[in-house]
């Protein structure tokens, strides 16, 4: 592992600072979206400055905005296991058209309770989440296809399919994997198009083909030993595991021909309607499962040394690089050789109806002695591949056609994934690579036993990679994707238009603000604008009531949210964007006077933006009364 002294050496002399200096008020050239790992969210950075510009709420509740607390957003986190407030988000993937990033959406997987989320890049909000049935540990995901026809999912953990109560040591007999294709092209319509039943291996990472290999997606597997305990040793015995090559166009044919089983399964599809400012959940009841035995040609295995992690397809769509964590070589497969091997039936055996191709028949070359622990690879569009190497803490750069290492650069420390700007598209931007490191020790001021993960920025525009910057990230990024800012920035919304607000409890005018009682439920139709609430004095609430504050922000000006919270609220605050409506639910427990206030500094008179609720004892006759200013209603 390199030391800090070496790090200083690795920064070439010269004006490195100016390469990453973005003066105050100027914007970065790239957006980069980092997965939050165990934070469950996505963080957005400007590159090259390394400045954080947003945290997008995805799989974890967010007390800052009320995401996952409000009735409007709780349905987003519903699953067949109930309401889940957290997950482990691993791999962001930017939507593509024709193999190039189009700046419409970002997708990201949830690992623990298998799901995929769509984030709309006009609002940077999560607008859709679909649960993946017949799955466990959704790791090789979402890695979509070149026109965003599909995003994919796979099982890191094989489990009984369908689930049943069996002894764990019946693994080989009862445990299976699945690979799923989820329709992704239409907002609100995400759907599991079909699943392919796979042998009970661990499926790890994925990439879909482009150009000539469009129509195929590739998944790494490990634990082809099918161990169920002490995998550290028991899943590291075979010299080669497999890359699964899935022909999804063939799968579509099989579905059209009825060669699938409609299997009962319960899973959630959650969709946030931007005009209603509200999410709804739909429960799905079955899924189409294809058994490769019934759909010849849908799946093949490519032997690949050894416990491969990354499987990455070059920008021209021809080369498939496996990152064998325990391998001493980096195997580079050829897509055209694979097609030929299939045609010639160059199979060494078959597993559960899936032919295993001969290694030599699909291999383009082995990159010899590349580094220790090669993990994941991206491409720069100039004929070079960049692979992260965990054990030796470095990035290697190589000519993947000529199979020759041309440069290596240390990382600090223990790099996991890397990213090259646009490095999984037909037209990578190149220019920068970012190392996402797992061990931070000594890279920042000490802040206790837990340190943020470090990210290191490399200039890759020249012959030699040059470390030019370092910054720290939210959660534990497992991957990130970068996109030219120009592809997004002019499409970003500044407000929600009040006229389009179709929230059933919205009030678009102060004169419509009111309080209504329905039995023990009290609905407050409240407005907020700099710098007052209407109504701001409310009486007639009683202990035992459930009070719904439906708060609409009447502002139509960029960056003027107002917050709302009341003393004793057991939920998070709500942070309401201009033109938006959100609801805070409150159950007062004792009589008294309860202040509420705006939590977001909104104007010179922000501190005056407040109000009171009077709570009377249960059973009292206190009449409902509400007003703002002198005009009592």
């Amino acid at each position, binding site marked *: 592992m390199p030391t800090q002294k070496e790090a200083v050496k690795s920064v070439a002399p010269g004006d490195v600072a100016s390469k990453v200096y973005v003066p105050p008020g100027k914007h970065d050239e790239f957006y980069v979206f980092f997965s939050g790992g165990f934070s469950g969210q996505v963080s957005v950075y400007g590159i090259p400055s390394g400045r954080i510009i947003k945290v997008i709420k995805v799989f974890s509740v967010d007390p800052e905005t009320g995401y996952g607390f409000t009735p409007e957003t709780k349905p987003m986190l519903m699953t067949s296991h109930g309401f889940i407030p957290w997950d482990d988000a691993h791999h962001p993937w930017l939507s593509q058209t024709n193999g190039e990033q189009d700046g419409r959406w970002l997708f990201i997987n949830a690992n623990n309770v298998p799901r995929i989320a769509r984030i709309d890049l006009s609002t940077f909000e999560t607008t859709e989440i679909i649960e993946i049935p017949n799955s466990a540990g959704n790791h090789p995901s979402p890695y979509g296809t070149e026109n965003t026809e599909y995003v994919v999912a796979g099982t890191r953990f094989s489990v009984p399919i369908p689930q049943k109560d069996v002894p764990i040591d019946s693994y080989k007999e009862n445990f299976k994997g699945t690979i799923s294709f989820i329709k992704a092209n239409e907002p609100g319509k995400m759907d599991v198009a079909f699943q392919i039943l796979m042998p009970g291996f661990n499926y790890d990472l994925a990439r879909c083909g482009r150009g000539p290999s469009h129509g195929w997606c590739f998944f790494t597997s490990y634990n082809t030993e099918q161990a169920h305990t002490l995998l550290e040793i028991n899943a590291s015995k075979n010299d080669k595991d497999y890359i699964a090559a899935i022909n999804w166009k063939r799968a579509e044919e099989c579905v059209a021909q009825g060669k699938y089983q409609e299997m009962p399964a319960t899973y959630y599809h959650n969709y946030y309607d931007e005009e209603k400012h509200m999410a709804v959940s739909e429960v799905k009841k079955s899924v189409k499962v294809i058994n490769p035995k019934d759909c010849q040609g849908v799946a093949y295995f490519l032997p690949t040394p050894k416990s491969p992690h990354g499987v990455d397809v070059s920008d021209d769509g021809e080369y498939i690089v496996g990152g064998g964590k325990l391998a001493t070589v980096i195997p580079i497969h050829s897509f055209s050789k694979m097609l030929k091997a299939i045609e010639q039936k160059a199979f060494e055996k078959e597993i559960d109806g899936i032919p295993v191709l001969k290694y030599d028949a699909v291999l383009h070359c082995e990159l010899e002695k590349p580094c220790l622990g090669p993990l994941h690879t991206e491409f720069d569009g100039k004929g070079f591949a960049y692979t992260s190497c965990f054990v030796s803490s470095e990035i290697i750069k190589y000519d993947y056609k000529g199979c020759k290492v041309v440069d290596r650069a240390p990382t600090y420390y223990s790099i996991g994934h890397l990213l090259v700007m646009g490095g999984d598209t037909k037209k990578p931007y190149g220019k920068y690579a970012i190392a996402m490191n797992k061990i931070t020790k000594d890279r920042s001021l000490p802040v206790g036993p837990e340190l943020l993960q470090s990210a290191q920025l490399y200039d890759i525009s020249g012959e030699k990679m040059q470390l030019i910057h370092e910054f720290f990230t939210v959660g534990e990024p497992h991957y990130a994707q970068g996109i030219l800012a120009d592809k997004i920035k002019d499409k970003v919304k500044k407000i929600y238009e009040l006229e389009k607000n179709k929230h059933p409890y919205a009030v678009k005018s102060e004169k419509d603000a009111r309080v209504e009682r329905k039995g023990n439920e009290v609905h407050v139709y409240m407005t907020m604008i700099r710098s*007052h609430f209407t109504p701001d004095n409310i009486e007639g609430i009683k202990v035992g009531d459930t009070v719904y504050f439906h708060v609409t922000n009447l502002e139509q000006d960029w960056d003027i949210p107002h917050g709302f919270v009341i003393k004793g609220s057991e939920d998070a605050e709500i942070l309401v964007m201009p033109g938006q409506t959100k609801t805070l639910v409150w159950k007062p427990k004792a009589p008294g006077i309860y202040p509420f206030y705006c939590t977001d500094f909104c*104007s010179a008179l922000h501190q005056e933006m407040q109000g009171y609720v009077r709570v009377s004892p249960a059973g009292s006759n206190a009449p409902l009364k509400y007003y703002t200013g002198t005009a009592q209603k």
Partner: protein
Amino acid sequence: MKKGLLLIAVALVFSCQQKPAEEAPKTETPPAPVEKKEEAISDKGIGPITEVKLGPIDQALAKKGKEIFDSKCASCHKLEEKYVGPPLKGVTQRRKPEWIMNMILNPSEMVQKDPIAKGLLAEYPTQMPFQNVSQEDARAILEYLRSVDEGK
């Protein structure tokens, strides 16, 4: 959002009006580039509206204006009462129609540069926001305010 306070602190210095360039003595050499002067502030305010032609009150337009006013303006402006913003009765007699529409459409620049709007910000320190209204909407609001002032 931290802009509100900043704006209050902004003090804009206008350069002194110099003699118009055409009155300068003529010389053989080409004239030195004349420094760009601040545009004189007119009583029409600053913004996209340079001229409004007024006719008799258009009742339909005034009605539409009232609807927009109720939704987007009435939280802060009452007609006769000093509220978050100034009372608006009589505003069409106090200000040019162009000024009123520019204040609706371009409030943040108005409170920085227009002397009347700057004075109002000092008196009513909540910065008036742009409420995402179109020029047509602003014209309708103007018509509503005219109908109030003319008692029609």
